[in-house]
């Protein structure tokens, strides 16, 4: 089952993205992971590539990005169709937890969890992959 999952990483820090991809590989073996340092490009990718038949995808979303914050990303994300959004589980990823962000994340139904950097293989394995409505 896990091998059928795709991964998207949206984070303005390329070093983080590189480490994250390696950690994913270490935890799960060969995985499909797309990384975007510009959140706008991430949105564009979802818009162009997702349809009703797409693979289930886990999206790691950074909150602090200069041009578009994670929250602004989510506002635009909400405009996607329910079918598309059903394919994607979003995990917020941040180098530190702001209580306000954390509280806000609990109210957003598209956010499945809040992870703190750095991500270790154990972090990735602990993500409940059965959390999808299949």
């Amino acid at each position, binding site marked *: 089952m896990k091998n059928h999952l795709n991964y998207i990483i949206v984070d303005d*820090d*390329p*070093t*983080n993205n*590189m*480490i*994250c991809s*390696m*950690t994913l590989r*270490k935890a799960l073996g060969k995985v499909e992971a797309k990384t975007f340092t*510009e959140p*706008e490009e991430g949105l564009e990718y979802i818009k162009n590539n997702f349809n009703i038949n797409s693979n289930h995808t886990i999206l790691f979303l950074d909150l*602090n990005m*200069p*041009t*578009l*914050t994670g929250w*602004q990303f989510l506002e635009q994300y909400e405009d996607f169709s329910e079918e598309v959004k059903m394919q994607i589980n979003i995990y917020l990823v*941040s*180098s*530190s937890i*702001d209580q306000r962000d954390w509280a806000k994340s609990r109210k957003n139904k598209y956010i499945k969890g809040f992870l*703190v*950097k*750095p*991500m*270790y293989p154990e972090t990735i394995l602990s993500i409940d992959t059965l959390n999808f409505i299949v």
Partner: protein
Amino acid sequence: MTQKIKILHLEDVPTDAELVARELKKGGIDSEILVVADKKKFVEALTNFSPNVILSDHSLGAFDSHEALRLVRQADVNVPFILVTASMTDEFAAKVMKEGACDYIIKDRLRRLPSAVINSIEKQQLRNEQQAIHEKLVFHIENTPLGFIEFDKKLNLKSISKKAKELFGWNLKDRVNDALNVYSLVYEDDWDWLNDALRQLTTGESKRNILRLRNHTADGQVVWCEWFISVMKNEDDITFMTLVQDITENKKIEEKLEENDLSLKEAQAIARIGNWEIDLLNKSEIWSDELYEILGVEKTVSPSEELFLSLIHPDDLKNCQEMFGRTENNSIDYRLLLNGGVIKYVFNKWRFEFNKNHKPIRLYGILQDITERKSAEIERIKLVNDLMGQNTELEQFAYIISHNLRAPLANILGASAALDDPDLTESDKETLGKGINTSVKKLDEVVKDLNHILQVRGEMNGSKENVNFSDLVDDIKASIAILVFTNDVEIKFDFSEINEFLTVKPYLYSIFYNLISNSVKYRRQEIHCVIEIKSRIVDNNIELIFTDNGMGIDLKKKGEQVFGLYKRFHPDIEGKGMGLFMVKTQVETLGGKISIRSNVDIGTEFTIQFAI
């Protein structure tokens, strides 16, 4: 005359006494006559017999009529004394009359005796009546609370009543015969008033005068008296008749009232509370001094509702009129707009007085100037808001900094964990090494940024100087000349309204530099880039307005973050996201404010305000 007239006859010749008795009877006088012949019997008879009239011979051996008259006076007997004697010279007669005899009869002409007796008795009665009236008058004068004094034009006392003496505290026995001048009664400082009043009376300018004078008393006290002076003129002679009343108590009460009034005024001035009263029936109105003061109206202006309403701030007038119109006790805060544009905050409270029929008859009100308190309150609210804003900003700053420190740190942690994997390829190891290196550099950069920000935020220790705006812009233009030239940028400025400001030059330079270079950086490529800078004075503030026709920022989406640290709005143009954050920090460090208006693809306008 129905009663018998009692006659005491001093005569040592019995035949003469009989002749007199016969003559009286003949004259129709019904009398009881006691004849005495010596001094001893005469004296006894004066008290025991109580005569109505005394007839006396002149020469009685060892006794005579002079002596008899003296005895009569000594016995304080008010009885007419008629001399009946053989013969006398005119000189002698005049002498006896002067001594107190009321008539004289010569024995040879006794026919005149009866009418002389009747006349003398009638005269005596008249005198007695006059005496009674006089005594009554004196009694009244002595018993009124008013003292009475008379003095002549040289101001020497002619008479002084008992009450006046009491008033001035004189000992009757000691001072009664002293020749006194009025000045000795009056306190020196009040002499001028007295002189003035007396002059008016003398010239006839006034008939009577009422004066309030301080008077010396015998025991050295000063008492306040009211002098009612009138004048009596007889040919050359002038007499001033004066009634004197002790008003020390009234004066004390008056002074107390004055004192109370003064302390009330003082209290009103300190509390900045004025008051008024409106008689609703007569439509008359009274304002206290402090109310005039608060309203900034001259005290000579008569109070009126129209005047009062005209001083209420137009924005508050409708609300006030609605409240005033309700005929119920109430209070309200509002503003006054006074002459010269002065705005005051006031607290107004009022109370109606109603008659038996529940009709309002009187309105009492107070008006307190609460401008100071209100300004302090506004200042306090502003301060609290500023502090809260600063606090939130600091929290945000702390969070951003910790986050930005934590990000490269997390990378290093993640990378070093990944390096533990024995299955890593050489190229993976190299990538991770590069990652760690990048992160360490990033960490260093964040710490440097932090340092830079804290330096600006810290104590503003740069010295202030007069900075010339046009020179500043010229400097910046020169420093970015190549950029301006190659990119077809036009920088225009208009500092005609104000071209100088006392401030810390490096900060202002940095602010101008950042804003201008931002405008160049985020210009629209397809059009001619125009940057305009203008200065003006608005409400004691200098406003600097930077306008460009560049790409603009979507404030609806990103408004909150415009001045945030590490916030960027144009992903395709390189930047650290620190420029506007630093501009805002520097503006605020200089005590100013910055705001932005922007439209995507139209341009951006920054307005900076500094208090002068």
